[in-house]
């Protein structure tokens, strides 16, 4: 008798309140119907085994799925997850790095800062990954339960029934034209690296002296004050580069418009680079003196080499980059 009570309790506790009394009553009468007149515990067990797991029975009554996300939504769920996860991870990573640099007071060794950022970065990516996974899964689990439409056809990305017209919305992307995620994250990484060097030039760029055991930073190459005069335009360029990387991530292939945008960005960066490099106060006196003695050249010669060389390399790089964009956008 007791087993029967427990069994019924196990079934109805999984059911909505208003269904419970009726189902409990019916279930009890059914179980008693199935038992012989003078039954033993063995008989009860036999009957309950026939009825099967209380969880399965209850889910049958509830008429609700025993899964979080069914075949109807699984495909859309998975594509969204694959799309959102890397974007969220990169954005939060960049935010974290930026915050760290803003809060940096210059007291700690740069290597220590870099190591702690890598550590924090891994932490942030894991945390954001879990958050995105949780909220997306929770949202879809709720949608699955609210959708009373009994249609079992899997949904397409446009949230409708699939027709051949859906194919028109998907761009055919030849391999050579495609922008890989690796390329996008690479360019974001590059932005982060040069921005770091820009804002911390007085701690990173310059002459290092090693005595075999440790590397000491002795002479900074640039005057940080002069360099920082240009910060508003540099921040705008950082913003443009990040926006362009995200645009590439979303478009997935080179287009003519993208190639033009890339060229404009390259021109702006080159002009700013030249303007900064032409500033006569940019390099520190100590550094110029160190270099002129080391290579036995005059101050003017050294200036010419650095400015001339820097500008030519930058312009060549920009032209190659812009040309490459147009070449890729022309591929059919």
């Amino acid at each position, binding site marked *: 008798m007791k087993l029967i009570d427990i069994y019924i309790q196990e079934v109805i506790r999984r059911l909505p309140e208003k269904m419970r009394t*009726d*189902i409990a*009553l*019916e*279930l009890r*009468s*059914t179980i*008693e*119907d*199935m038992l012989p007149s003078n039954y033993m515990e063995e008989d009860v067990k036999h009957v309950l085994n*026939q*009825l*099967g*797991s209380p969880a*399965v*029975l209850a889910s*049958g*009554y509830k*008429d609700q799925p025993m899964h979080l996300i069914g075949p109807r939504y699984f495909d859309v769920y998975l594509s969204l997850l694959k799309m959102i996860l890397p974007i969220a991870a990169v954005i939060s990573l960049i935010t974290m790095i930026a915050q760290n640099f803003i809060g940096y007071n210059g007291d700690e060794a740069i290597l220590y800062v870099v190591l702690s950022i890598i550590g924090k970065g891994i932490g942030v990516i894991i945390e954001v990954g879990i958050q995105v996974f949780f909220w997306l899964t929770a949202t879809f689990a709720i949608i699955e339960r609210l959708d009373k439409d009994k249609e079992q056809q899997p949904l397409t990305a446009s949230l409708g029934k699939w027709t051949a017209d859906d194919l028109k919305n998907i761009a055919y992307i030849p391999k050579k034209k495609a922008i890989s995620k690796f390329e996008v994250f690479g360019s974001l990484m590059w932005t982060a690296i040069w921005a770091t060097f820009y804002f911390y030039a007085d701690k990173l760029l310059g002459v290092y002296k090693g005595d075999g055991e440790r590397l000491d930073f002795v002479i900074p190459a640039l005057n940080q004050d002069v360099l920082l005069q240009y910060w508003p335009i540099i921040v705008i360029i950082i913003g443009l580069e990040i926006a362009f990387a995200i645009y590439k991530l979303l478009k997935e292939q080179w287009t003519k418009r993208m190639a033009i945008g890339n060229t404009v960005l390259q021109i702006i960066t080159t002009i700013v680079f030249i303007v900064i490099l032409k500033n006569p106060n940019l390099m520190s006196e100590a550094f110029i003196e160190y270099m002129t003695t080391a290579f036995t050249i005059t101050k003017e010669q050294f200036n010419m080499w650095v400015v001339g060389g820097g500008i030519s390399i930058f312009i060549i790089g920009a032209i190659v980059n812009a040309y490459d964009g147009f070449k890729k956008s022309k591929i059919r």
Partner: protein
Amino acid sequence: MSKLLDSLTTELRRGTLTLAVLSQLRTPQYGYSLVQLLEKSGISIDQSTLYPLLRRIEKQELVSSSWDTSESRPRKYYVLSEYGLEILSQLEKEWMNISNELNTLLRGDDEDEVN
């Protein structure tokens, strides 16, 4: 191999379950009497499927239910509604069609083998 056969057989039978249950509800039945009726005609049905199924077709208004408390233990009786009767006759027709079609297909196979 036999496991696969089992699951395929279950799948094959699953669709016919509603029809089998509806066909026995022209007269009022309670849960266990229905099980016995079905088993008598050789149809074994998972009981954890049957009871929820009864609830579902009640919700779909194919059957109506009533509690009978006159006997020693209360029993819930289910019987076809008018709508249920209508649906049942149409499902019967569908079943005849399906079994004719399949018979043709399967017999066609046999003839091929003979030739």
